[in-house]
């Protein structure tokens, strides 16, 4: 059912990926341009800038915020964001007393339409294993020191629901436009390992 580990002279992943592509192209089963398309999409078009637009809009538009919390997938579609790993998106909102953080302990499920592909730290066994057991300690090590009175809520994405954190809007941002707000919203804040800061 499982396999034994590879011999030490097993070809590198670089070579194997080339070999696999060549074999499939020869058989007419993939087109390199199709692969280029997948790659370009996630390098250029789908990434945390999408999620940032959602958050910024929620910060300035109370009706949108309400729809976003009640029915995330549909509200997000209003901005044109949907696709793989976004079948059902649940938005969890931070408050003065609750901080949310998202993980997938079993693999690395992540809300692609809003955040693109997950960063290395999200896929790191140390993150996957520790955030469900010692979230406060881990977040502290990652640079986020939460006040003792803040309750940490951890969301383990074990089915097809994808969780997305609506961070708190920082103080002294009253004068910023929706676009300016989007520019300060980080990926890490939308996963819940950081908070949004100004300047």
């Amino acid at each position, binding site marked *: *059912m*499982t*396999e*034994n*580990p590879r011999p030490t002279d*097993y*070809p590198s*992943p670089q*070579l*194997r*990926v*080339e*070999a*696999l*592509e060549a*074999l*499939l192209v020869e058989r007419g*089963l993939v087109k390199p341009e*199709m*692969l*280029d398309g*997948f*790659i370009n999409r*996630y*390098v250029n078009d789908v990434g945390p800038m999408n999620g940032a637009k959602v958050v910024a809009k929620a910060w300035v538009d109370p009706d949108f915020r309400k729809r976003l919390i009640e029915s995330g997938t549909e509200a997000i579609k209003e901005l044109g964001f949907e696709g*793989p790993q976004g*079948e*059902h998106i649940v938005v969890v909102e931070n408050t003065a007393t609750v901080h949310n953080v998202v993980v997938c*302990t*079993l*693999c*690395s499920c992540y809300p692609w339409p809003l955040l693109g592909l997950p*960063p*290395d*730290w999200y*896929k*790191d066994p*140390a*993150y*996957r*294993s*520790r955030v*469900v*057991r*010692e*979230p*406060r300690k881990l977040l502290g*090590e*990652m640079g986020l020191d939460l006040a003792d009175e803040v*309750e*940490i*809520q*951890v*969301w*383990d994405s*074990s*089915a*097809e*629901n994808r969780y997305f954190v609506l961070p708190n809007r920082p103080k002294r941002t009253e004068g910023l436009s929706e676009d300016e707000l989007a520019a300060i919203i980080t990926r890490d804040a939308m996963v819940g*390992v950081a908070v949004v800061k100004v300047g």
Partner: protein
Amino acid sequence: MDGLHDMGGTQGWGTVEIDPNEAVFAEEWHGRAFALSLASMGISGTNLDAFRHGQERLHPLDYLSNGYYGRWLACAEKLIVDSGVLAPGAVEARARRMRGENVEEPSDVEVRKPQYERGGAGSLREISDKPKFSVGQSVKAKTFRKSGHTRLPAYIRGHAGVVKAIRPAAVLPDSTAHFTGEDAQNVYTVEFTSTELWGDGAEAATLFIDLFETYMEAL
């Protein structure tokens, strides 16, 4: 299966480093491995659940050694070989030839893609079964050990929680990954306290996790 992938609460993994300047694909092969992995499900006639289980079936050293896209690539190859679309050893042989080794490539084998019915695209399904559990109800995650795919992590098994929300029904990974049917069913978000999961000395925290109805029993 009770494998390395089931990492929740396991220890010994060290610390987490954030690289603020990380590229989407740190190396060119990461992007190719990603795209080929997406394509591999269609090529092999499998599905997302089978893809996840394919990763779980890698030897732990293969799972860990080349990072996330290393395990995706190994899994894509495994699904394609399992389906007979490529012969066992075909990728290795081609890769060795590419680096100048004089090895023979294996002949093609018979294609044997899994035969099964899908109830639609994606994983969500409309079902007529009413949810067995209600929001606020106390439930317990079942204690089971199985050799196949499941999305009930070990760290939840046998523990008591409270239903927080009822989510859209979805295909059951345990059967879908093995092509034995979709068995679509209700899915719940269940809330557990950290002390329930990790004992009295645990850090205070609340854990929410999504569980398929068949993973749960009334308390």
